[in-house]
């Protein structure tokens, strides 16, 4: 793989805790399973977690820090996933790196990684400060993760503004922690509301799913198995769409069958 044909995708959100790292881990595994060589870069140097979600925390020897310092080769720092050898993690270095790390450093690391992998997923830290800007420098396209909540959508909007001004594109949206029942009863922002407000194409819808927590406990991303839980399917579909497959998007709040769902839809009919 050459750097030119690689895709450098930033996974970001603005607001913290909306599911960036979970998406990065699951998407990384899903892409690898679809046959694409994929590297995930932990760009959250302050609060690194990607290693933990992938179950690779005990196999880290070197990090991005040693690679940058030239004290180890990239291959030595990359941690290959045992079950899914198409996937490798480049761990974040010491939090003190934040003091001197510059956007050029991140760009340099990403370029090196891109020489060996088709997909380079960059797990950004929350916020819009230095750490985020460093991560953004390494990317050519972005996935913005948000939940259907006012604060998350507002922060996503800030991030989209920054991505636009840096010329990062395309920018696509993943809506996480969707609760179909709440959406159907209009107590949660609808999918269309969020995509309209942010004016981004929708790359995926991930439901609120307990299995996400179970899989995090184990350090085994949902996309590793064939569990078929709603979130697992959603993450795999995101990977497929990223690769250009036309996988239809189904709004779970409109999908629901039965009398209650029908009454719910009736209530939404415009009468004047």
């Amino acid at each position, binding site marked *: 793989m050459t750097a030119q044909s690689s895709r450098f995708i930033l996974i970001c959100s603005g607001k913290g805790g909306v599911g960036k790292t979970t998406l990065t881990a699951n998407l990384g595994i899903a892409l690898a399973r679809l046959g694409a060589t994929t590297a995930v870069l932990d760009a959250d140097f302050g609060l690194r977690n990607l290693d933990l979600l992938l179950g690779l925390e005990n196999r880290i020897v070197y990090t991005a820090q040693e690679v940058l310092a030239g004290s180890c080769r990239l291959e030595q720092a990359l941690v290959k996933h045992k079950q899914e050898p198409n996937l490798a993690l480049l761990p974040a270095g010491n939090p003190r790196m934040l003091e001197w790390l510059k956007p050029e450093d991140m760009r340099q690391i990403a370029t090196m990684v891109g020489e060996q992998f088709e997909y380079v997923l960059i797990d950004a830290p929350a916020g819009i400060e230095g750490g985020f800007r460093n991560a953004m420098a390494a990317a050519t396209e972005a996935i913005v993760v948000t939940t259907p*909540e*006012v604060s998350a*959508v*507002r922060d996503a*909007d*800030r991030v*989209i*503004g920054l991505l*636009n001004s840096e010329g990062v594109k395309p920018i696509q949206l993943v809506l996480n922690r969707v609760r179909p029942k709440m*959406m159907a*009863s*209009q*107590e*949660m*922002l*609808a999918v269309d*509301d969020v995509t309209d*407000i942010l*004016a981004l194409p929708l790359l995926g819808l991930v439901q609120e799913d307990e299995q996400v927590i179970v899989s995090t406990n184990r350090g085994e991303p949902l996309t590793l198995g064939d569990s078929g839980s709603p979130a697992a399917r959603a993450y795999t579909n995101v990977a497929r769409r990223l690769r250009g497959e036309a996988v239809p998007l189904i709004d779970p709040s409109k999908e629901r069958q039965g009398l209650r769902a029908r009454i719910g839809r*009736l*209530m*939404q*009919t*415009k*009468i*004047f």
Partner: protein
Amino acid sequence: MTLRELIDKLLGRQPASADTAKQRLRLVLAHDRSDLNPELLEQMRREILEVVNRYVEIDLEEGDVSLATEDRVTALVANLPIRRARIPEPELNMAAGTPEEDSEGVATLG
């Protein structure tokens, strides 16, 4: 208005929170995106009304200047109901050089 909204109104219930969320977001994002603080916006609103008021008589109570946002484009939207045009000032008339004078000098604009 949807059926749900009608029933909510009839029963005196609060509207569904998703709608409230959407409206609040639209407003806050219009401000975020324009980087105008409320004070500046209010000043601009007053000055716009002042200028417009020089040319046409507007309903100052009804007049509304606000930010709206759609597709990541923020627009300044002014909705100023016009009562009628002001009587043209004499010097403006001379400059225009129109010999026929309007009998009343007031155009009613609906």
